């Protein structure tokens, strides 16, 4: 057993992470930047950072991931990374010709104190940024927060650097979809379209990280929010931020900078969270929810009705990113299941309060931890076994050692293909999730049944 060393006894650890449930900020910034059309993400740090982030994103999305690096050397660490970044900006616009470069920092460039906005300004003065091209930036030190923080910071950077209030209101609503799959972003756009609401969604990685096979390697795929759209977010009627951790910071800055009021909602995963999103979107836009969406909701409820007999009282352990876990916990409770252990690696005490609030009726005894790790989750499971484990690929060690049915959900998924093509948001996403959950539970029942009780019809 790979995790044979995990003890049942839980001892508080101060200075040590064993099998992390998070990673560092820059990868989130890189993912967010890929959601801008014709953008080349740029990692201001050592070469390895960029390479690791590209590899991990490639393993999850199974798509080419393009990003450049400042390629720090010992000299840059001593004298600062200014010349590297100026040279990088020049080389990138010459060779890769993006419309926009999104620079994020790393632990290295943050610690030596590089002032990226000032360096970008210098590049502009030196004529390294061609007419009509843009360089935006975000500060993403790896030693603060997590990959989700990095995503939030880069989205905030888009607002900081590009959003403008020109004084003319536009009949459009901003939606920040959080760190979700390209399929989720596509589904959110689809829901808005069905409602007849004009939206600007940023970032938008659909048609970037789920591009079709065409026999061509398109360096900048057709998807992504455009620079014009990003600028126009300052003139929108309102912003809906999906996910308090990943999306709220940008929405709040947009409100402060351009006076665009914002609504912070949970990610629309599950019935209630999707209801809240649909109602809010319809409310702000002054639209009536169309039958097509109401019927979709009805189909989800119908499926759950058929399934409810199997869900009652099933214990679940969850781990992953805070915004996803909050909505998922609520959904599982509505399915009559019991999420008993919940861990995110991302720090933030508010997460624990939110989860406890959601589960105070139903699962008041829930174990929940922000800034936790997989080792802790495993210990909790040893003390109170579960019927199902939901989380990213790193859950497979626990699932195997403890022999628990396991559903892959979240980031990263390194050992399956297809997850980025099916949504988990919206009513459609709900259907997809419950199908996976019931499948996992009943597959296990079939596997474990003795022959005399192994039945055709379940």
């Amino acid at each position: 057993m790979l995790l044979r060393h995990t003890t049942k006894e839980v001892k508080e650890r101060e200075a040590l992470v064993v099998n992390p449930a998070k990673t560092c900020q820059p990868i989130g910034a890189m993912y967010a930047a890929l959601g801008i059309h014709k953008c080349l993400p740029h990692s201001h740090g050592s070469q390895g950072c960029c390479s690791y982030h590209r590899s991990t994103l490639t393993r999850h999305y199974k798509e080419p991931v393009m990003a450049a690096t400042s390629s720090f050397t010992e000299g840059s660490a001593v004298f600062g990374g200014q010349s590297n970044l100026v040279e990088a900006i020049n080389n990138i616009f010459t060779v890769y010709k993006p419309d926009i470069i999104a620079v994020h920092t790393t632990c290295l460039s943050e610690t030596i104190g590089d002032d990226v906005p000032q360096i970008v300004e210098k590049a502009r003065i030196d004529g390294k940024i061609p007419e009509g091209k843009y360089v935006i930036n975000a500060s993403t030190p790896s030693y603060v927060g997590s990959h989700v923080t990095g995503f939030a910071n880069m989205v905030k950077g888009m607002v900081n650097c590009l959003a403008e209030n020109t004084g003319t209101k536009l009949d459009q609503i901003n939606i920040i979809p959080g760190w979700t799959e390209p399929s989720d972003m596509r589904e959110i756009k689809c829901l808005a379209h069905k409602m007849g609401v004009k939206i600007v969604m940023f970032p938008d990685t659909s048609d970037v990280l789920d591009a079709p096979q065409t026999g061509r390697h398109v360096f900048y795929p057709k998807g992504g929010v455009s620079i014009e759209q990003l600028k126009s977010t300052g003139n929108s009627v309102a912003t809906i931020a999906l996910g308090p951790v990943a999306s709220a910071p940008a929405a709040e800055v947009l409100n402060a900078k351009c006076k665009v009021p914002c609504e912070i909602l949970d990610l629309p995963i599950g019935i209630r969270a999707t209801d809240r999103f649909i109602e809010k979107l319809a409310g702000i836009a002054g639209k009536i929810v169309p039958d097509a969406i109401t019927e979709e909701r009805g189909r989800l409820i119908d499926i759950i009705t058929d399934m409810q007999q199997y869900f009652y009282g099933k214990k679940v352990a969850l781990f992953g990113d805070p915004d996803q876990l909050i909505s998922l916990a609520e959904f599982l409770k509505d399915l009559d299941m019991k999420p008993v252990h919940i861990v995110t690696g991302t720090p933030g005490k508010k997460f624990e309060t939110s989860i406890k609030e959601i589960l105070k009726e139903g699962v008041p005894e829930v174990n929940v931890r922000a800034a936790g790790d997989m080792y802790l989750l495993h210990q909790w499971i040893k003390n109170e076994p579960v019927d199902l484990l939901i989380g990213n690929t790193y859950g497979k060690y626990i699932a195997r050692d403890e022999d628990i049915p396991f559903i892959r959900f979240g980031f990263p998924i390194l050992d399956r293909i297809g997850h980025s093509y099916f949504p988990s948001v919206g009513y459609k996403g709900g259907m997809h999730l419950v199908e996976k959950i019931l499948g996992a539970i009943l597959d296990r029942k079939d596997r474990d049944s003795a022959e005399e009780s192994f039945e055709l019809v379940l």
Partner: protein
Amino acid sequence: MINILEQRKKQIYKKGEKHFDMKCETTSLAGSVSQRACVFCGSRVVLYPIADALHLVHGPIGCAVYTWDIRGALSSGPELHRNSFSTDLNEIDVIYGGEKKLLSTLIELIERYQPKAAFVYATCIAGLIGDDVSSICKKVAGLTRIPVIPVQSEGFKGTKKDGYAAACHALFSLIGTSGNEQKVPFSINILGDFNLAGETWIIKEYYARIGINVVATMTGDGRIDDIRGANRAELNVVQCSGSMTTLAKLMQEKFQIPFIKVSYFGIEDMSEALYSVVRHFDNREIMEKTTKLVSSEIERIMPTIADYRRKLSGKNAAVYVGGAFKAFSLIKSLRHLGMNVVVAGSQTGNNDDYTLLKDLSDEGTIIVDDTNPLELSKFIQEKKVDILIGGVKERPIAYKLGLGFCDHNHERKIALAGYEGMLNFAKEVYSTIMSPVWQFRVSREGTEDI
């Protein structure tokens, strides 16, 4: 047309052009979409397969996560190496230093896991904030009575190759500390095989069949005690020369152990690897066993290889790998399958490597150092490539272009070493080139101009 920067032009050569003056071993240009990694990555991949050691990454969380069990280096026993341990440095540590955290973390981990040794990787931040990783390691070694070895692998202090060297020095500090100096007769150490998909096991089995004793494997399926006693071997057999030659040279100097460079990929190179070991020992019995092994293995696989060759004849391959040595074996293996290598490159080759590569290549082959996706796509299109052989970041590019792909890097899941590996390789190349999915390809126009 894509632009190739003036500075990069000397890193690309087309065989047949008169002037050959490959520029390599340079740091990548700032702003390049390089496929390369960093010093830490180099150290981590070399040391990671040592299964009964604790591997602690001292830095912010990312470096530990991105190297957590990604390499598929299999172990026949302990699996401590497949866990991820990090000091997870935060803002306060960056200001006040991470030494205290490192000390308490190490003591706690060693107490809990009882490893045979601990490797502590210093990342960018550890170096920058001035943590004295060496002295903490020394202190913990004194307290716990196991070797605690600092690996100075700050990402910015050079290239991946410098990381290999740091790993070699870490290994070297262990060798000869077992207290036993007696030589093992007819014995070798296997250097530079990492037991991906169980390849070390295949190679070890060949050596066992011909009567050669393997003292230590560095580092595939590696164990600390074996490494400590590696001075007892009579010969070092180095694969992946880019990563392990440093160690072989250090051992030659200190323990007078000679070394030879080999490759276990492909029929000729595998056979030559065995024969060159045998030549060193100059023993008739071993030679006879080897001749028998080689001929029986070749006899076993050749009919199948010939069958694949008929089907693959004339297909074009592009090879882009980490170390150049691998490209040599791949060119030879692909020739066995009747295929042409029309593009060949590496991330970290040196001048000698590229000269060899040039000599081995056919006319018109493009040779490239530290390429980027844009150039790679262009060459693939220009040379009408049917399969790309590379690593994780190259795979989706090949697929998008509508051509086959074979992972010859960390993520191969099928053993490609040895005679068995040649069969697997042929099968994999065939299945991907001939996949029915390519019938549905809409067009095949290569890279889009940007």
